[in-house]
């Protein structure tokens, strides 16, 4: 480990940060990548001296850098052990034994959660959803995921040093697929050679060579009915059309790729990035061409190091092949793609939070209006699109809007990747058409509820969509059907709870997530998410009151809808409403029994559904 003089970083690190800074119009945007590099190179944590040296090097005040570093869970502002073990304790991992994993980790290392072992070897952290839901439970040791853990038998030193690439689930059959075809066909689907062999970059070539006008590309996408796959489902072509006419607004403009995938239960963008990154690259290039954007940033959540590496490698392969950079394929269209790391904050998946973070600041969402197309990165026109959304674009351009509209439903066209997890036989990421009944995914893809148990509850599209009762399992997985059912499609991440699960415990875990992730700007969200969690915690552990049931609803009504800068407050309120609506009897039981009635029947620690 190199030492840091009070006023400067090691020269090699400074050179690296200088190079990174050239990717952005403002030097400050290099801050979060710089903090990652400093933490990695300088002892696994960010000491005050390092924070100050980094600040000076980037032309910032130390207090600003401290404010930024303290916002992101991945940055350690206190010394850590030689190895850092992070255990996800969010809902899906909880359903598959995270409690036991954490216990075992603490026993093996001698460290408490949030602490370091006496010998300084290990630090142990609990973390929120890491995007390993289909392979839960998991732990991360020094940036490498170890998934599908056998909670009672894993050994830390014997864990593999390299991460296993994400896998895709085999389709159920009986419907057309395109998204995961390449991934399922070959292990090396991530390479340029494999991509080209499968017909990759043909769409881009045709657009550039014909040429097809940029606005035409937007029209094709609009016509296809493609809607955003990041959770909000906004029509993609329409979003692209919001970018101003370059003749009227000649300022530089950007595409920000939202690879911050952090919605609990969601692990599907990861599959695309790790196994088919060129599909994303081509989608990015086509989107940039359509919107006349010359620079794209791929904002990858900090924990997805393997995804980052795979996409970065693909970008370099593409660059070497003349597909990325100046004058793509000699067409006159130039498009630079820069990789960017997040640092562990869910709120940076919100498009304006993402932009703030990319600019090197705390990930505080911005009030809208103004919208990103008018005022985005550094105040310039910007579009933010999800990974899976962009991944669809080359297929749409290649095969046409008419083809795309035949898949899915009238208002929710195309296929989507359903990451299904929790109490199922075969958790995984499966390609299915929009509009497929949820039951079909559960039974035909995932093998049904595990251990021959009955279904009690399920979440259709990530924890922000709330709980639905088992009786709703025939609901079709599309935007309108789920809205009618009182929920949302969200990210299409299904989480299933069997009959032994406790919905109150589930809400304790889910509400803890939102309290942990609230950026803290808005009064209702900052205090409300914390308050909701406190109430669920009391209900689960014995100090619940009858008044709490109504209080939950009242607080959730005070937080949402539309009362805050962003929808995180809504994301906390919706599941709260859902447990009151569908599982009030479980809440009342917890009040009557002074805690979880199932907890009394077993010894600690409680394994939800184990």
């Amino acid at each position, binding site marked *: 480990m190199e030492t840091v003089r009070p006023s400067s970083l090691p020269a090699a690190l400074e050179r690296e940060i200088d190079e990174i800074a050239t990717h952005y119009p403002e030097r400050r945007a290099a801050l979060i990548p710089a903090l990652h590099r400093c933490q990695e190179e300088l002892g696994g944590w960010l000491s*005050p001296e390092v*924070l*100050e040296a980094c600040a000076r090097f980037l032309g910032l*005040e*130390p*207090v*600003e850098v*401290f*404010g930024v570093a*303290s*916002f992101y869970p991945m940055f350690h502002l206190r010394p850590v052990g030689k190895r850092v073990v992070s255990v996800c304790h969010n809902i899906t991992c909880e359903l598959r034994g995270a409690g036991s994993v954490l216990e075992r980790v603490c026993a093996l290392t001698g460290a408490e959660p949030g602490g370091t072992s006496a010998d300084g070897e290990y630090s142990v952290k609990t973390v929120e959803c890491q995007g390993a839901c289909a392979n839960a439970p998991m732990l991360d040791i020094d940036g490498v995921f170890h998934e599908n853990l056998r909670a009672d038998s894993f050994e830390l030193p014997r864990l593999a040093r390299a991460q296993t690439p994400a896998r895709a689930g085999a389709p159920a059959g009986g419907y057309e697929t395109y998204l995961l075809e390449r991934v399922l066909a070959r292990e090396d689907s991530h390479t340029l050679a494999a991509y080209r062999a499968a017909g990759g970059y043909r769409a881009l070539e045709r657009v550039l060579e014909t040429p097809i006008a940029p606005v035409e590309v937007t029209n094709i996408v609009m016509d296809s009915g493609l809607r955003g796959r990041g959770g909000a489902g906004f029509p993609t072509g329409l979003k692209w059309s919001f970018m101003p006419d370059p003749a009227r607004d000649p300022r530089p403009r950007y595409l920000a790729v939202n690879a911050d995938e952090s919605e609990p239960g969601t692990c599907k963008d990861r599959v695309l990035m790790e196994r088919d990154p060129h599909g994303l690259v081509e989608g990015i290039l086509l989107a940039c061409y359509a919107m006349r954007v010359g620079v794209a940033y791929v904002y990858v959540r900090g924990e997805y190091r393997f995804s980052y590496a795979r996409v970065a490698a693909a970008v370099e392969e593409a660059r070497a092949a003349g597909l990325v950079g100046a004058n793509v394929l000699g067409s006159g269209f130039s498009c630079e793609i820069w990789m960017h790391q997040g640092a562990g*904050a869910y*709120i940076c998946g919100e498009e304006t939070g993402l932009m703030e973070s990319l600019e090197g600041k*705390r990930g505080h969402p911005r*009030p809208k209006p103004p919208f990103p197309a008018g005022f985005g990165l550094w105040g310039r026109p910007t579009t933010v699109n999800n990974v899976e959304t962009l991944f669809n674009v080359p297929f749409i351009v290649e095969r046409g809007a008419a083809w795309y509209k035949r898949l899915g439903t009238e208002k929710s066209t195309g296929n989507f990747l359903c990451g299904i997890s929790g109490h199922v036989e075969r958790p995984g990421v499966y390609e299915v058409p929009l509009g497929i009944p949820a039951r079909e995914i559960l039974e035909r893809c995932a093998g049904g509820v595990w251990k021959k148990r009955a279904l009690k509850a399920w979440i259709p599209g990530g924890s922000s969509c709330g709980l639905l009762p088992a009786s709703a399992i025939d609901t079709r997985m599309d935007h309108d059907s789920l809205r009618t059912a009182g929920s949302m499609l969200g990210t299409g991440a299904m989480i299933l709870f069997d009959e032994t699960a406790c919905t109150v415990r589930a809400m304790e875990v889910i509400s803890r997530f939102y*309290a*942990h*992730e*609230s*950026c*803290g*700007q*808005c*009064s*209702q969200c*900052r*205090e*409300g*998410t*914390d*308050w909701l969690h*406190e*109430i669920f915690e009391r209900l689960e552990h014995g100090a619940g*009151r009858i*008044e709490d049931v109504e*209080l939950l609803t*009242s607080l959730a009504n*005070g937080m949402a809808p*539309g*009362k*805050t*800068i962003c929808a995180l407050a809504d994301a906390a309120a919706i599941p709260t409403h859902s447990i009151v609506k569908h599982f009030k009897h479980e809440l009342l039981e917890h009040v009557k029994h002074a805690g979880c009635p199932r907890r009394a029947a077993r010894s600690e620690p409680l394994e939800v559904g184990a």
Partner: protein
Amino acid sequence: MTCILLDGREVEADPKKPLIHACHQNDANVPMYCYHPGLTPVGSCRICQVEVKQGEMPPRVVVACRTPVAEGMIVNTDAHRAHEARRQCLEFLLKNHPLDCPICDKAGECDLQDFAFQEGQGEGRSVEPRRKLEKRKSLGDVIVLDQERCILCSRCVRFFEDVTRKPQLTVAGLGAHSTIETFQERPLEGNYQGNLADVCPVGALTLKKFRFQARVWNLTKTPSSCGECSRGCAISLEVLRGGEVKRVRPRYDPEVNQWWMCDHGRFAFGAFNAPDRLQGGLLRGSAGWEACDGERALDEAADLLRVHAAPVVMVSPWLTIEEGALVQGLARELGVRAGFLSPPESPLKDDLLHTGDPCPNRRGLSELGFEAQSAEQALERLAGAESALLVGERAAEHVGDAGLAALPAGLRLVVFETRPVDVPAARILIGVPNAAERLGTWINVDGRRRRIAPSKAAPSGVTALTRSLAGLLERLSSVGVER
């Protein structure tokens, strides 16, 4: 200007400012915490909710600080839904707020108290233990932070970003565990820290100097001007029960100091409370100083000046133009040229408010014909004179006590000052009110008239300097006084 309908009235709204500004300009009392007209709006506290209707869209509840005004917009600040939203925000803000009012300096001028009273629900429903954070965190010499009281409006962070342009505070952490911090417990620096106590809407950031000094409802507040430099910031002089000045705060003046003032000016009020005051007159007799009333002292002064003609006349840089005009009258009567003591440039000069010139009335005095004199020049003139008049609060300190003490006893010095100037050269001393005790006008660096006004009574026996000067002039002039 854009025309909107605000609570049923047609009003003109500045299109460059958010809706909340138009509301406040027109007496619509929309609550606010994170919004401050002098800082970048963030829209985070969510308290300034109002109902707006635009075109054919159904009315919606919005935060007024982030809503642009639009022609024909219909605004209802009294809508039930707006009140509901504010009520709920307050319940969230009060959930962890400590019940410190009985010991909190902000009580009586606290926006949380005021808006909770206006919009709140009276009782919170939380049974959860309150957050425990640092309650007496020193941020240096000026400010103390109580993190528990903080409602994370971020005005303090934005003050340093927007006004002094050097970040010193940050929100650290996130969510409900956010706190306001400096870097590594470093104290705040700079000459503008006191403004934090003004911008903070609650008692989280308070002045050490004001801690537990007074209940604000016992303070009488008088609009006046600061005299510590030639900016002449608009201030409020705040006096406790007619006794001491306990606090000075800036007043909003869009043309001079906006909402701010510097710490140097803010904390200089101790001089106004100095107990060492000259009341009435003091005459040097053979047996030492002999007290007398002001009128008798003026008689003696007039006699002295008739006999020992051509006195050196030197005035304080703090003299008002009203006082200055009378001194010029005296100078003409006495056939001499008067000078004013010109202090050297202050190192506090900055590109914000402090002009670097400690003389609040340089332009006024110059325009009246007073010649600027450094302390050295003044002493030189005084040393060679037969008699001299030294006039005004702070005149003695601007000549310098050491220099004054060294002047020959033969110099028959008549001094009008706030405190006794017991030096061998002094013959007659006459008490004057200080800048917290008198009415007058200064002219600031931009040529603007800055008014000082009395916030407390001068000690008994002290007459207004204008009156004393007029009295002296009357005694000396053969044709009476022209004012």
